[in-house]
């Protein structure tokens, strides 16, 4: 292959390729212009790009949320409230007596004390 022939071929290829680039359709040219303006806009606002160090506060926030969710005490359910009740209250719950009894337990205590006092008092007529 002679150098002259190669030069001719390269020259023709260059002309053909350049012509194909110059004759782009209107839509492509318009989109290329938009792309160029977007790039120049990016150069104008370099801060709009996400930089690696921007992940640090985001990571810290995510970690804080995770810690909050994991470390937060779970809401206490009704069954847990029963389990945590003091032992004397547990006796009340487990007893076979009706709850009515425990509601008036002060009255019954007073009644029992009154009965006991009555037993200890001497008979009015002095009989023993």
């Amino acid at each position, binding site marked *: *292959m002679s150098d002259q*022939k*190669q030069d*001719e*071929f*390269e*020259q*023709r*290829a*260059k002309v*053909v*390729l*350049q*012509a*194909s*680039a*110059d*004759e*782009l*359709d*209107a*839509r*492509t*040219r318009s*989109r*290329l212009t938009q*792309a*160029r*303006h*977007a*790039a*120049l*806009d*990016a*150069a*104008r*606002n*370099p801060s709009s*790009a996400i930089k690696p160090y921007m992940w640090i506060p985001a990571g810290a926030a995510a970690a804080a949320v995770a810690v909050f969710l994991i470390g937060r005490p779970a809401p206490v359910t009704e069954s847990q409230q029963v389990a945590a009740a003091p032992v004397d209250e547990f006796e009340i719950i487990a007893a076979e007596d009706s709850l009515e009894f425990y509601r008036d337990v002060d009255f019954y205590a007073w009644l029992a004390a009154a009965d006991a006092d009555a037993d200890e008092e001497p008979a009015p007529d002095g009989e023993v």
Partner: protein
Amino acid sequence: MQASATLSHQVMGALCTQGAAPEGTILDQARQLEQFLAAVEKRAFQIARLAIRDADDALDIVQDAMLQLARKYAQRPSEQWKPLFYRILQNRIRDCQRCRMVRNRVFGWLPGMRSDPELEIGDPYEATPDDAQGPADRVVTDEAMRALEHALKDLPARQLEAFLLRTMEGMDVAETAEAMGCTEGSVKTHYSRAVHALRERLQDSWGGSA
């Protein structure tokens, strides 16, 4: 034109705030960046389109390359923009080709997932180029381009890169090596093989010059 001037001033303002250089230099740099992008965009698009064989993907690739150059390398000396821009462009082209290869391997067996860009018919009015040449010249150039495009299709990727960067963009061996990320010796080899293969394939259609 006025919009371009405004944009240049905005770019200048942004570069000023980065405190890289005096205002006059930065104004020049902003204008230079715009001029550089305007000068290379059409050829870059054609290089991407010939490598990818899809106009929409090629437009996306050029836009990505422009954005990356503007974001990361706008403050570099303007002499470095060309090899940097084409390096980014070639990387994007390779990424796109890899993606396609994977997609074809994974989904290629499905009916309807096989896409052949040559079979896709676009809007004929949009594809019609503007009349810068006379009709007779247009026919000759179009036929020559069609034949060249057909011949380029079978060229290995690296030979295609070397050929397009050297012939279309007019880069010298050193610039091409920088853009391709290889040695100057490799560029010479790829380019020489590309020219040889193309001359053989175009012998019939291009006649004397091939």
